[in-house]
């Protein structure tokens, strides 16, 4: 009987999948909502988008602290360059997990629309109303999202390549079930 492969810790897995789901919902929502004509539904979707995004930002700090105090399991055997790409992708994903929602928050502040978390908790604006900066942060938000999309694509492709082609059980390291 082979030794069970090392896994990420429970909280690391929980954080990974909860945040992955939130991001994968926020993204298409963001693309869809901005093309809608102004309507109550549009206002609602914008708010849902912001609340989901702010949740990602909120979860990031505990996740980072956990990551620093709990090293991930030793890497699977793979060529050094693949490992390097996987690691840099992870680091950039962490970076974008902050920059994407942060640019959204800055955009909302600059456009004069405060974020009120779940419609009840007012979150302070990061700056006063400034149309020029609002447009700037909108472009930043779009650009960072584009980068996020590319990196998540690379990340998922890598995970599936290892899982399906290399059959090295990569996915299981991040899943609480299977062996």
């Amino acid at each position: 009987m082979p030794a069970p492969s090392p896994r990420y810790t429970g909280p690391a897995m929980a954080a990974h999948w909860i945040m992955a789901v939130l991001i994968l919902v926020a993204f298409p929502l963001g693309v869809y909502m901005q093309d809608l004509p102004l309507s109550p539904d549009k206002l609602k979707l914008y708010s849902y988008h912001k609340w989901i995004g702010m949740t990602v930002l909120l979860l990031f700090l505990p996740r980072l602290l956990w990551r620093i105090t709990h090293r991930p399991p030793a890497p699977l055997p793979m060529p050094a360059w693949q490992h390097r790409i996987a690691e840099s992708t992870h680091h950039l994903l962490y970076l974008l997990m902050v920059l994407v929602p942060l640019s959204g928050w800055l955009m909302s502040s600059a456009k004069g629309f405060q974020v009120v978390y779940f419609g009840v908790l007012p979150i302070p604006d990061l700056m006063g109303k400034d149309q020029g900066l609002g447009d700037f942060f909108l472009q930043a938000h779009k650009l960072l999202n584009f980068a996020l999309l590319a990196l998540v694509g690379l990340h998922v492709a890598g995970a599936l390549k290892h899982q399906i082609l290399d059959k090295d059980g990569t996915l299981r390291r991040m899943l609480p079930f299977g062996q």
Partner: protein
Amino acid sequence: MPFRTASLALAASGLLLTGTAQAIEYNQVDATRSSLAFTSKQMGVPVPGSFKRFNASIAFDPARPTAASTTLEIDLASIDAGSREANDEVVGKQWFNVKAHPTARFVSTGVRALGNNRFEALGKMTVKGQTRDVVAPFTFKQEGSGGVFDGGFVLKRMDYGIGEGPWADVSAVANEIEIKFRVVANAGPAKK
């Protein structure tokens, strides 16, 4: 020297006396220093807005506040609702329907003194063809040569049909709109 002081004091008291005898009335509205702002709540988010053009006329004698009267006429097309998208929307049929109802009007019917420079203006507010009674608390203070009236009230937009159709959904845009006005008026000869 004592003689001069005394005469000065005499002159000053004489001025004061004439001042109270001829009632000061604040009735020259200074449009550039007056403002009409509001805050709507969208999904719980307070969104500030304002009207750039409005006409206020006022007649207020601090000695006889209950005799005061005011009329406010608002050019609805001059609205700034917080964003270009919103500005285009709110002049439309479902909101103010500015083509059919270009102005909103407040006409006072009375003023109550609450003490401590606090008052209440009672009046009729007409928006989009609907007229409702309104009570607007305000304060009065003298600033230099002018009088400053600061006040506000909560307008329930559904009372006037402001936001019809899908916009009648008050969970997206709250029914309560907070109105804040500041009218600065200089003293002028009483009109009556």
